[in-house]
């Protein structure tokens, strides 16, 4: 089992607010790792530190060692666009570009100077289980798709770049149960090729798809381990209370 993505002694603060404290975490290649914990515990902050989304907020202070294999993600010599190409991201709310379905996939390929033709776009859409539904409407604005379709389009947009890791920030929180199941099925299928880190508030979802589960509370990792173990015999009392819905 090879570690694909890791953080060592990671601390993040925004202004005076210390959001993540001494985080050590490893994401294993071709596995799904779920991050769970009550709102505000720092799950999304942790996820977004890997593709350097915090670069946008000027008051974010990040210390620690974040690595994609041997690559230091915060090294000055590494262009941030390169990192974001290798570490894709799917957001909580589907955010397709205000462009056509085809352009939504093609755009990322083009700006990264990757080959971009209809077959590449088709392959990405097929991988996101979306091709059959949109193959006749590739010129249609992406905003006309349903919420679940838009989210699968965003996944297709991420996989089109052939990333190594895909970060998912509550990708199903705005979707109905049927669309959620479709996306879960897709995530499980994608782990054959990619390493996946997913933030979720849905305990059943974590149990259905994750190989490993990490429980965060107030910016600290309280417990981590194989999903089955976390949910069936948690060692930490807080973990037990959280997964049984006593707080959070």
């Amino acid at each position, binding site marked *: 089992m090879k570690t694909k993505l890791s953080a060592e002694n990671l601390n993040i603060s925004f202004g005076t607010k210390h959001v993540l404290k001494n985080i050590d975490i490893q994401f294993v290649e071709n596995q799904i790792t779920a991050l769970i914990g009550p709102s505000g515990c720092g799950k999304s902050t942790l996820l977004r530190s890997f593709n350097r989304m915090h670069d946008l907020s000027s008051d974010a202070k990040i210390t620690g060692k974040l690595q994609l294999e041997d690559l230091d993600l915060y090294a000055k010599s590494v262009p941030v666009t390169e990192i974001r190409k290798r570490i894709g991201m799917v957001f909580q709310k589907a955010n397709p570009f*205000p462009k056509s379905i085809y352009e939504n996939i093609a755009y*990322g390929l083009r700006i990264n100077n990757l080959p971009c033709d209809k077959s590449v776009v088709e392959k990405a859409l097929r991988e996101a289980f979306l091709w059959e539904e949109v193959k006749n409407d590739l010129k249609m*604005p992406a905003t006309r798709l349903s919420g679940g379709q838009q989210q699968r389009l965003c996944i297709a947009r991420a996989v089109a770049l052939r990333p190594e890791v895909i970060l998912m920030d509550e990708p199903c929180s705005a979707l109905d149960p049927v669309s959620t199941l479709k996306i879960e099925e897709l995530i499980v299928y994608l782990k054959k090729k990619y390493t996946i880190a997913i933030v979720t508030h849905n305990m059943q979802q974590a149990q259905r798809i994750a190989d490993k589960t990490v429980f965060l509370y107030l910016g600290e990792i309280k417990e981590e381990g194989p999903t089955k173990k976390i949910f069936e015999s948690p060692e930490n009392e807080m973990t037990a209370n959280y997964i049984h819905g006593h707080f959070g």
Partner: protein
Amino acid sequence: MLLKSSKISTVIEWGTLLISTLLVCFFLVVVIWEIVSKGAGQLSWEFISKVPSEGMTKGGILTPIVGTVMLTLLTALFAIPFGVCCAIYLNEYAEDNWLTRTIRASIRNLSGVPSIIYGLFGLALFVQALQLGTSLLASGLTLGLLSLPYIITTTEEALMRIPNSTREAALAVGATKFETIKDVVLPSAMPGILTGVVLTLSRAAGETAPILFTGAAFYINQSSGYLDQEFMALPYHLYMLSTQHQSIEEVRPIAYGTALVLIIVVFFMNLTAFYIRFKYRKNATEM
């Protein structure tokens, strides 16, 4: 009793709002009716295709039409590129600190400065200091300055309405900040930006004070439109005909005709803004 009094107050509340609305509409209708009824008789192909002649008592208003069109184009040329770039810098690049906030507040305040001040400033800077003379170019630059704060403010507001999740989407596929703005943010904000631009230009087209000292001429009896020369403009022409002409009664119909043409020009510019908004909204939702 209680019920009755609340009924009365409802009627009063409703009535006050209705009467205010009707009053506003009444004056608008009177103004338009006055101008259309007295100016419509003047409208003809000759009126808009002939230059004014015989001391502006005869002929058409081609010269002021050409002048106003040229002036508006010049204003657009000076104000749009700088205004839009400035708004992009302020909204997308500048950090939110006291300097940025001061700059932004200053720009908002500039849009409240009376236009006659711009006129005097244009006279001092463009006409005299830069030695452009009273000319179309000097007036265009002055109107450009006047339009800048409006364009910056409306563009910035259009950019602010684009949610951050849209920017993050582009960044997450490896776009640089500039690519994100160029390829995703600007196209999304375009309807708002264009609407602001057109409304600003239609306002500039109707301005008199800034061109008064910087290049507008009382009377030119030939077609003009050269950058280094004086020009005639519709609003100034109207002002002249209504208050400064020696045979004011004789030229009154021409004045009404000019007012009508000016209103039509501004109306069409506003209609363009309306159409742009409508078209983009339609594209976004269905297409």
